């Protein structure tokens, strides 16, 4: 027995030694700033609109930069979110990276001095002329890391906004008219309810519920209201007309059965699936669902902007950022410029994305055309109102629990708004 084991132990030791040796190698990263490699990280799925468009951009970049290698690494959203500040502070930083927009993310990195100020490049390449004002809000951060003014730290390639997705087949089957005003919208909800169908898909455990709430508030809001709430340019009062109306209406909708009480614990994924499987005729959510609905919906469907609201949720998409420690910055700028050109932007648009600078005539797919025209409409009327969880760190969880209380009825609208006010005041910067 012992004789057999001896070689085994030796083999184990040898294996361990070999492992140590292999693990020592291949730790060297490329030479310093030779201008020959572009290290690129992003976290979009390869079959998403952005994934397809950016793959095309890589090909075009290789053509216009012969001899330059593109080292692309697909990352996960969580991975970049959790480790960005550490990686960017080391010599292993990429040259160009996709990063989430907002004060808590890009703003924080900008404040820590981990991102390159892109202002000179923006004017040199003319990117600012391609982007509408409400899209650029998330590209610029001041010295405190608050978005909306100051230097440029990121360039968005795409936009995102929320809309009402509706199941045309279910509307026809139940004889419900597609609404064009808010009154008609509520009538449509009532008509579905009368037929025994719960009209609205909802996920109370994640963002869908509070996006309903915020959208309802936005029907009574204007730009200065949004600026006060999101950019701290005034006092945000959760007991003002807009928020009060929103909380009352949402709780009213639940009481009338337009939103199922059981959805208080549902995830966004559940809400989306209930729309895709044809259970819910209406789902109010973001353009990020568009590609999936196009691939998976087995019925006729369409979308429209939330009726009678000048503003809706949305913003510029995620940003291209150039880390301070990037070694080949010029290559990174060249790559950003390629992704802002018509060719890539049109590809983005034709694959279910929302490009920021496409030619409307080049978008051939009719449903994509509708998607992009609606975005341009909102963006042109300065109607992108960002997301309710942005202003304060940790506000997302507060919003989720607050709207859950509204849905289950364990809190009155007034109590819920008190809770929001308290969390907001505690977290918002005082200037």
């Amino acid at each position, binding site marked *: 027995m012992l004789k057999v084991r001896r070689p085994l132990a030796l083999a184990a030791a040898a294996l361990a030694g070999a492992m140590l040796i292999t693990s020592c190698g291949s730790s060297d990263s490329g030479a310093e700033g030779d201008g020959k490699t572009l290290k690129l990280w992003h976290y979009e799925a390869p079959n998403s609109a952005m994934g397809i468009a950016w793959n095309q951009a890589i090909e075009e970049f290789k053509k216009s930069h012969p001899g330059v290698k593109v080292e692309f690494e697909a990352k996960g959203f969580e991975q970049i979110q959790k480790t960005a500040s550490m990686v960017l502070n080391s010599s292993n930083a990429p040259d160009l990276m996709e990063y989430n927009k907002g004060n808590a993310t890009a703003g924080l990195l900008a404040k820590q001095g981990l991102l390159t100020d892109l202002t000179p490049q923006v004017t040199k390449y003319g990117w600012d002329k391609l982007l509408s004002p409400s899209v650029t809000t998330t590209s610029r951060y001041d010295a405190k890391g608050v978005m909306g003014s100051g230097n440029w730290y990121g360039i968005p390639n795409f936009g995102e906004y929320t809309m009402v997705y509706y199941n045309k087949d279910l509307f026809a089957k139940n004889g419900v008219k597609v609404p064009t005003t808010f009154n008609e919208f509520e009538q449509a909800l009532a008509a579905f309810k009368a037929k025994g169908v719960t009209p609205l898909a909802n996920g109370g455990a994640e963002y869908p519920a509070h996006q309903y709430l915020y959208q309802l508030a936005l029907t009574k809001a204007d730009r200065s209201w949004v600026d006060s709430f999101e950019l701290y340019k005034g006092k945000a009062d959760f007991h003002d007309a807009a928020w009060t109306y929103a909380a009352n209406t949402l709780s009213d909708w639940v009481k009338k059965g337009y939103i199922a009480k059981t959805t208080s614990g549902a995830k966004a994924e559940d809400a989306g*699936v209930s729309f895709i499987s044809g259970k819910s005729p209406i789902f109010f959510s973001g353009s990020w669902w568009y590609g999936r609905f196009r691939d*998976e919906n087995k019925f006729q469907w369409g979308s429209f902007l939330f009726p009678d609201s000048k503003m809706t949720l949305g913003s510029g998409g995620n940003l291209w950022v150039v880390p301070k420690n990037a070694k080949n910055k010029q290559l990174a700028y060249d790559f950003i410029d390629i992704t802002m050109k018509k060719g890539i932007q049109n590809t983005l648009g034709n694959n279910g994305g929302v490009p920021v600078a496409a030619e409307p005539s080049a978008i051939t797919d009719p449903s994509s055309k509708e998607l992009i025209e609606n975005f341009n409409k909102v963006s042109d009327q300065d109607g992108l109102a960002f997301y309710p969880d942005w202003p304060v760190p940790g506000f997302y969880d507060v919003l989720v629990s607050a709207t859950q209380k509204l849905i289950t009825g364990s809190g009155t609208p007034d109590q819920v708004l008190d809770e929001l006010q308290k969390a907001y005041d505690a977290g918002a910067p005082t200037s």
Partner: protein
Amino acid sequence: MKALKRYPVLVAMILGAIFMVLPLLIVLINALKSPADYSAHGPLSLPHGLHLDGLTDFWTRVNFGHTLLNSVVISGSVAVFGVILSVLNAYAIGIGRIKGKAYFLAFFVLANVLPQEALVYPLYYLSKQVGLYDTRLSLIIVFSVVQAAFGTYLLSSVLGAFPKEIIEAARIDGANSWQILWRMVVPVSRPTLGVLLVFFFIWTWNEFLLPLVMLPSNDNQTVSVALGVLQGQRLMDATMTNAAGLLGALPAIVFFLLFQRTLTRGIAVGAVK
């Protein structure tokens, strides 16, 4: 009569087994569905037709073969070095006579219960200082020490009960401390060491936070980190996530099956004591 008595136990065991296997089964059926199938029929229905794209797409997307190798190298090295470290420590504490034994043990327990989140920043700065950031070696060192903290604690109490007669006999025969360790203590406690080896391997395999932080580049990534690539910002790809989960869990299951006998033997040895 005896057979009759066994039935309730058997039924309970079968129920228990179903309970344990069910989650894996759900992962399996969802891994084989197409996304449209999943959206239309939900997670609990059987797949309508076989759809292997999720598995193959994920494999190529994260270069899974290479990731697997990384995980095996890291977990394997940690298992071996962790056990060696534990044995050396435990030999000193459990059998050797050192002052303040209890304090040493308390120190190791303390190191053991320390949350990893607290270690993230110090380890990040240290590894950057010595130029080991983003190398697999950094992770091997860190986890060998982390696992050895538990291993030391456990082995010290096992070796504390080591028959003194054997050691005294060996000493009389002229063996020095080194020889006693390798010729006596290690062979006798081999089953326990085998269990430790398996545990260290599987624990290191499942680690997520430190590999995520310490190995930013995809070339060095481990399996558990690669699974996170699918976590989108707002969307999740349920079928591909299941496919990835399946691929990620399989090697650990295979490893467990291979070393199952070592494990049961180790537990049995513990039971006799």
